């Protein structure tokens, strides 16, 4: 009965790819390899090889052969039985084999690759191996080599399956961690509407979001994205969330919270990983929003159909300690919406490899109307863009924060129903209107503004002046700002303070400029030297107490101010 010495490392430890493929520990284990019956019992009885061990089933010590050992090249060039004693090779492997008491070594070669050695110690009879023995061993090796190779492959495959199962299990744990840490329900805040969507690209993602409700009624809002995916990302996300919550409870300022989390995270985060994160604190009573941003995608704010970015600068968390975070403040007015999101939305591609892109996300936000929720609308648009069969490239996370549009508030004597307006605590919101840009719709605007200010009990004359000014400003906005595109509405906001009515009329024509209101030259018009037109701005200016024009890249706003104290005099401009 032959006993095989296992020449290389244990197969169960996965070898590096460039290492010599180790042979199966015991070739006979392989079901396809029937080494044992081939051997005549007396011929190669190596049962007692000289090994210092007491274990009865002990085998020869393992011999490691480096892939660059000269012996490997020798075996490949001289297949057949090799007498180790007679080898004249300067080789660590040869010395090791001799040290292990190996007399003969027969390389097992499969498809030109050395996959193992059949090593034999001295014969029990202490006679030399005969020619017959050598022939037998050589034949045996030729038959054994492919069988051993198959056994190796089977074992590798089993190991791969086990590895996959282990990863699956890890992922399940990571997913569980993540699901536990994401908010289970949305906070219910009167006057506010929150919505969230989270869809990782794989089993676990690097995105996260969180809501922190403070005792005083403020709401902390977090959205973040950990670089990397899978288990490491889930762990870092869990750590970041915990740190954010802990810091948020102790520190008030979002900038200070991010600064603290960054400092703590820097010591713990694996190298080359970092976290982008936006943290905002909302005062639900006033709409005041304070926020700081650690390198996360800028949230978008929609106000009167116009979309802008909420900018604040700061480095991602976990890159380097001691960073400062810019803190910004804004007020969310009734009807306004903020979209927080991760890059999985904007960086989605369609089948033509075109990216959805941040400008398009802004545009979609601006175009959204109230019939469907904003999250559903964006997901619908994303699906329409990517087409069916889209393989989600990155985690998609959306959080929307909407302040409900104020109903038309009838103003009580003490103004207690008032909601506040930034910069002036005494402004009350009377109405928010959205007028489609279609010819004739200025009449809708004038009637609706008329209703909104009904409770202010303007004199008939003042009311008509205001309505005509509103109609003219709305016409300008529909025609010059929005080019009469019905899908571009004119947004109108009606506000009142103790002393003044303010009507703000906003279009989406940022590129156009609003000219100065000039006094039309009626004589020139009557002489047909000038167009008969050009009365709009002139009328507005002469009907209200003050007209203010403001513009940005995407919109114009004309603000009409009318005093509630005393009547405006009829103005002529001779």
């Amino acid at each position, binding site marked *: 009965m032959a006993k095989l010495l296992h020449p290389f490392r244990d197969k169960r430890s996965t070898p590096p790819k460039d290492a010599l493929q180790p042979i199966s520990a015991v070739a006979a284990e392989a079901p396809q390899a029937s080494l044992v019956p081939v051997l005549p019992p007396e011929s190669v009885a190596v049962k007692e090889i000289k090994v210092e061990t007491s274990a009865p089933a002990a085998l020869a010590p393992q011999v490691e052969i480096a892939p660059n050992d000269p012996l490997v090249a020798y075996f490949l060039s001289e297949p057949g039985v090799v007498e180790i004693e007679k080898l004249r090779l300067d080789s660590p492997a040869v010395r090791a084999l001799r040290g292990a008491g190996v007399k003969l070594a027969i390389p097992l070669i499969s498809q030109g690759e050395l996959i193992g050695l059949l090593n034999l110690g001295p014969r029990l009879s202490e006679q030399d191996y005969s020619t017959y023995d050598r022939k037998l061993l050589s034949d045996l090796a030729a038959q054994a080599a492919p069988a051993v190779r198959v056994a190796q492959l089977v074992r590798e495959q089993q190991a791969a399956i086990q590895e996959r199962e282990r990863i699956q299990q890890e992922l399940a744990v990571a997913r569980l961690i993540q699901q536990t840490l994401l908010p289970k329900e949305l906070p219910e805040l009167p006057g506010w509407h929150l919505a969230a969507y989270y869809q990782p690209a794989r089993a676990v993602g690097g995105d996260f979001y969180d809501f922190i409700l403070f005792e005083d009624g403020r709401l902390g809002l977090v959205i973040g994205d950990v670089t990397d995916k899978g288990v490491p990302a889930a762990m870092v996300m869990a750590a970041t969330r915990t740190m954010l919550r802990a810091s948020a409870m102790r520190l008030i300022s979002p900038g200070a919270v991010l600064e603290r989390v960054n400092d703590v995270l820097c010591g713990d985060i694996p190298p080359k990983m970092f976290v982008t994160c936006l943290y905002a604190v909302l005062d639900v009573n006033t709409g005041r929003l304070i926020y700081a941003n650690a390198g996360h995608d800028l949230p978008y704010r929609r106000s009167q159909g116009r979309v802008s970015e909420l900018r604040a600068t700061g480095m991602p968390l976990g890159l380097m300690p001691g960073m400062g975070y810019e803190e910004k403040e804004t007020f969310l007015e009734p009807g306004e919406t903020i979209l927080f999101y991760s890059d999985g939305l904007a960086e989605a591609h369609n089948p033509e490899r075109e990216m959805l892109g941040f400008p398009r996300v802004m545009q979609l936000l601006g175009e959204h109307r109230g019939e469907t929720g904003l999250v559903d609308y964006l997901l619908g648009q994303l699906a329409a863009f990517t087409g069916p069969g889209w393989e989600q490239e990155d985690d998609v996370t959306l959080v929307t924060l909407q302040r409900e549009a104020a109903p038309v508030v009838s103003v009580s004597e003490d103004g207690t129903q008032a909601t506040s307006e930034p910069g002036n605590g005494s402004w009350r919101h009377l109405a928010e209107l959205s007028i489609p840009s279609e010819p004739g719709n200025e009449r*809708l605007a004038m009637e609706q503004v008329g209703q909104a200010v009904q409770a202010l009990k303007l004199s008939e004359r003042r009311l008509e002046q205001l309505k005509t000014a509103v109609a003219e400003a709305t016409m300008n906005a529909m025609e010059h700002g929005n080019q009469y595109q019905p899908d571009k509405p004119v947004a109108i906001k009606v506000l009142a303070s103790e002393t003044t009515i303010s009507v703000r009329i906003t279009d989406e024509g940022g590129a156009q400029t609003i000219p100065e209101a000039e006094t039309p030259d009626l004589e020139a018009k009557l002489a047909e030297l000038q167009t008969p037109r050009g009365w709009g701005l002139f009328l507005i200016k002469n009907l209200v107490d003050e007209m203010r024009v403001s513009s940005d890249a995407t919109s114009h706003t004309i603000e009409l101010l009318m005093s509630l104290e005393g009547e405006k005099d009829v103005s002529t401009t001779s």
Partner: protein
Amino acid sequence: MSAQHLEARVRHEPGVAVVELRGDIAAFAEDTLNAAYTEAEQQGADPILLNFSQVQYINSTGIALIVGLLARARKTRRQLLACGLSQHYIEIFQITRLVDFMNVFPDESSARSKGQISSGAQQSTHHPHHSNHHHQATDAGHLPHRQPGKH
């Protein structure tokens, strides 16, 4: 409230061609208004009276159309009168100085009785800046009071 299209009916009364207007004077009123004016013009050399009593809304484009009619009237030395304007639109006609070129009366009967005195309108056409404070319609007491020192 949705926009009302303009309807115009031309009626010839002794000494005046009356254009009865009903609806809104805005961009889409252009053809109707011009056609009615042409029709009124063809009925003789009498003054043309625009009756606005059934008009609820005049916007800046409508003002431009009226300016256009005034320009036509001026070219042909035709007298153009207006009546039936609400207080608000009388004010608009003042702000735009249309009243300097167009006699404005409270209603059709006052226009017909006083409108025959064409000298007032012609005078105001020739001296618009001076007539601004002393317009016939103002004298008729149908315009809001103006505070002094505002001009």
